[in-house]
């Protein structure tokens, strides 16, 4: 019985964390770690901000990608480049309101010039930008533009087939 309760408790917790996900603060070395992960995981790293219209417009496509491919070895992470002072008053309410299921992380770095190239030397710094990468599968593709589902799926499929 105790065990059962424990499980229910756990379920509740999971449910909670789904409704209001924690937004970890990450440094650029986390991006490097994802890029250097030699497992078969395919990382879809999307750089965005709450006030960026093309970024917000493409979010449903990333959500759909996450729903379709999260159990197939694909991790979608939405890396926010909002202002730090806006994390509590803008980013968190936004993520809750939109009920985002993709993992959201906040890029807690001050000097973009030091980390933009770590994501991709192809990136000029404009958002939205998306990196699809799997070191284990030897795949990397970068986009500096608004993405659409078909394009995302094509790239992810290509990564998974690599």
């Amino acid at each position: 019985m105790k065990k059962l309760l424990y499980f229910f408790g756990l379920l509740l917790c999971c449910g909670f964390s789904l409704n209001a996900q924690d937004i970890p603060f990450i440094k650029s070395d986390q991006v490097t770690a994802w890029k250097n992960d030699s497992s078969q995981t395919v990382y879809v790293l999307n750089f965005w901000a709450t006030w960026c219209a093309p970024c917000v417009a493409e979010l449903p496509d990333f959500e759909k990608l996450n729903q379709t491919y999260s159990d197939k070895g694909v991790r979608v992470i939405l890396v926010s480049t909002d202002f730090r002072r806006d994390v509590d008053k803008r980013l968190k309410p936004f993520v809750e309101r939109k009920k985002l299921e993709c993992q959201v992380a906040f890029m807690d770095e001050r000097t973009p010039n030091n980390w933009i190239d770590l994501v991709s030397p192809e990136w000029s710094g404009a958002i939205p930008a998306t990196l699809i990468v799997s070191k284990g599968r030897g795949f990397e593709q970068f986009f500096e533009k608004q993405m659409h589902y078909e394009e995302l799926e094509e790239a992810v499929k290509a990564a998974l087939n690599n």
Partner: protein
Amino acid sequence: MKKVFSFLALAAVLVTLSFTTAPVHNGYHVGDIAQDFKLKNVNGKEVSLAGIKKAKGYIVIFTCNHCPYAVAYEDRIIALHKKYSKLGYPVVAINPNDKDVQPADSFDNMKKRAKEKKFPFVYLYDETQEIAKAFGATRTPHVYLLDKERKVRYIGAIDDNHEEPESVKIKYLENAIEELRSGKDVATAETKAIGCTIKWRKSGAAAPKKEKEAVKQ
């Protein structure tokens, strides 16, 4: 073995794809001579670089009204102009965004913003987006420091901290201007910054000039 080959073929296709779909950063590199232009200022007058008297160089900044990163830099851009225009290096701000994609960046809203913030510099409207394309600008804000001969001497960010002006450690642009002023090569000639994508006109949308004609009819 066949599988290996088909994988290799696929990989080759992917590599080609990734090259063809990657954003191509055409436009100017450090050392190129930038073209002059004639664009409409918020006061209605056409401005060209050649028309700016006594200039020893130009701080060309692609910026706009709506982008929070651009807004975060407004006061610093004003301060830069106040400091350097009298030394011969005026700020030439250019809004390259399409007003249909981002209505906040229309010419009327540029006029409003320039008035609100009392912009001491020219704020030009690149309505056809040809100048942004020629320069290779991709985001706002995006800086090009030109010398007197319009040679590009620096491309990139204003400084290393968009959010907290008080915590700035490296003023890339000011350093570049100072080096240019003292006749040195710019040590850090290219930097990157997070910015808003330039809002390019949607393909198929009418070009501005045609729109005007349509209005006349």
